[in-house]
């Protein structure tokens, strides 16, 4: 079935009647959406597919709560469910990592120096290093702060979209992002200080 021809409401009706084939089709159809969210917001020790499975199980369990007549597209409802499931999984991760300067590779150190630097300097070119150091810095933040920065800066979602996905007000999203960036800077500075010890 081509993606454009996928009839979501009809499929949902069949799933509500415990139709396994329709349920499989629903999982396949929304896989790119769900795995993208799971990949961006998963705890370090959890495989993205396990998290995606958890999201789908929650989706099936709560399907009765979704009413298309509310005007909310199913994709939005599912995205919000996926984000809250990821938040729960991140909160369940008992300990946050404690990165040290010695844990960083050369490329990551270059980027970290660049982030906290104040004198004019070109951005480092190590693409792999930046991804790693960004993930390490984000992992030092609280679950909510990490979520807001990932959605805003890495996924380039709008404040309104984040508000819709998380259920937080627009002002709260802005304040949380502002504070989270300040904390990121503090963590980066702390790591950098270690290099001088």
């Amino acid at each position, binding site marked *: 079935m081509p993606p454009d021809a996928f009839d979501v409401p009809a499929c949902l009706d069949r799933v509500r009647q*415990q139709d*396994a084939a329709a*349920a*499989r*089709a629903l*999982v*396949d159809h929304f*896989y*790119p959406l769900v*795995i*993208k969210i799971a*990949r961006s917001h998963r705890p370090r020790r959890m495989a993205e*597919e396990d998290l*995606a*499975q958890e999201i*789908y*199980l929650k989706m*099936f*369990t709560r399907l009765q709560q979704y009413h298309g007549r509310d005007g909310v597209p199913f994709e939005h409802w599912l995205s919000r469910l996926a984000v809250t499931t990821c938040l729960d999984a991140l909160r369940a991760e008992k300990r946050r990592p404690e990165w040290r300067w010695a844990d960083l590779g050369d490329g990551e150190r270059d*980027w970290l120096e*660049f*982030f*906290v*630097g*104040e004198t004019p300097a070109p*951005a480092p070119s190590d*693409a*792999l290093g*930046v*991804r790693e*150091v*960004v993930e390490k810095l984000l992992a030092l933040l609280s679950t909510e702060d990490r979520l807001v920065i990932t959605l805003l*800066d*890495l996924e*380039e979602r709008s404040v309104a979209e984040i508000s819709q996905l998380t259920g937080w007000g627009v002002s709260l999203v802005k304040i949380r992002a502002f504070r989270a*960036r300040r904390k*990121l*800077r503090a963590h*980066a500075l702390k790591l950098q200080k270690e290099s001088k010890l």
Partner: protein
Amino acid sequence: MNEFERRWKLGAEAARRDDDDSPGEAPFGFAARVVAHWQTQPGPSLATLWQSLVLRALGAVTLVLLILVTYGTFSSSHDELARPELESAVADSLVLL
């Protein structure tokens, strides 16, 4: 935007470029596995249903108590206005009932 935010944005942009592998189709058997898990999941047990019912009832009772306490607090200032002879009459009529 301060200098850190400007540089962080540059880093985030570079990280985005590096992470540009868009997710494709679900791996073979993934949907079947998820659906099988869903279908073998037990429905909500009696204990779970009972628990949610009790919690809702507790919430309702707390709300009623709060309303009564609030009402009692605000109406207590009018107690001195109550006439003892009227209270006695009401009490007597209740005994008769």
